[in-house]
């Protein structure tokens, strides 16, 4: 992969975003989407899948470490995204990795997230074109120490890149971008504050929280997200 080659873009269909993001997200690659709590990064991820279904019938997979699938279905009804209907139609699938439903598990000895990787690979092979993982922060807090999370996100990003799906991985805190340097060569791009700390190709300095040039994401109830250039 040469850095000079132009990266093919996948139009997200998110209102205004593709215009400020050089045509969309890097096609067939993972992109990191950064933003603090409440900044709308989960909504951005949801809408990325929803627009794929509405515009071009591209099936999507939502891997949720934060909200339960049930919460997301309910919250999305107000945006007019009939997720349960899409699930029945085979266009949307959840991998619900939220710990709310988890039983208490003891940890004894070494482990990795091999089963999660296998589940994602399996779901993608059923035909998904878009994948979201929400969020890196939750993976880090769940799997203590950070080393396992970092190593496994590397593996997941590599698996997604190999499968050739266009994907979003959301992240909350700045120090996690340090972790990104590990996965950067699998990442098509990163969306976040200036991106200076990561070696990933930064498509756009876009901070979901709201005010950094050149783009601003606005959360518009009833219309999903709207991205605006700040020029």
């Amino acid at each position, binding site marked *: 992969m040469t850095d000079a080659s132009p990266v093919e873009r996948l139009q997200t269909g998110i209102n205004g975003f593709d215009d400020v993001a050089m045509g969309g997200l890097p096609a067939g690659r993972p992109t990191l989407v950064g933003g603090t709590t409440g900044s709308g990064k989960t909504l951005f991820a949801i809408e990325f899948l929803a627009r794929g279904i509405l515009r071009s019938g591209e099936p999507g997979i939502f891997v949720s470490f934060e909200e339960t699938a049930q919460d997301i279905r309910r919250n999305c009804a107000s945006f007019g995204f009939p997720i349960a209907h899409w699930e029945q139609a085979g266009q949307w699938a959840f991998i619900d990795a939220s710990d709310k439903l988890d*039983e208490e598990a*003891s940890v004894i*000895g070494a*482990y990795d*997230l*091999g089963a999660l990787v296998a*589940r994602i690979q399996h779901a993608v092979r059923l035909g998904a074109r878009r994948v979201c993982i929400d969020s890196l922060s939750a993976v880090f807090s769940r799997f203590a120490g950070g080393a396992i999370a970092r190593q496994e996100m590397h593996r997941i990003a590599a698996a997604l890149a190999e499968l050739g799906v266009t994907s979003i991985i959301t992240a909350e805190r700045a120090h996690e971008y340090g972790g990104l340097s590990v996965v950067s060569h699998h990442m098509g791009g990163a969306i976040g504050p200036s991106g200076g700390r990561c070696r990933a190709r930064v498509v756009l300095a876009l901070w979901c929280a709201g005010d950094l040039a050149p783009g601003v994401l606005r959360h518009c109830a009833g219309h999903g997200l709207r991205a605006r250039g700040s020029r």
Partner: protein
Amino acid sequence: MYAFRLYIAGQSERSQAAETNLRGLCESVLPGRYELEVIDAAQQPGLAEEHRILATPTVLRLAPPPQRRVIGDLSDHRRAAYALGLSREPGSAGGTRGGDQA
């Protein structure tokens, strides 16, 4: 009768360690009184989905209730026995004399 399901992902050293440790533990504590099923999540992702398995190795104790879940290669036999409800004592973190309770 005890029933365990061990989830692994591929035939790695870690997978084999978990299976060896679990079998050793069962043989010493529950000889002839247990069933162990090994599921490779890479081969049967649907079964991993069913029990919401993310980490491997993961052991589920399916019977008797309550269900218990232990993540890791079970390298510490004493703690593994306790976590799976096979001993009453938490044991030491060292686990040097693991699996010797009758």
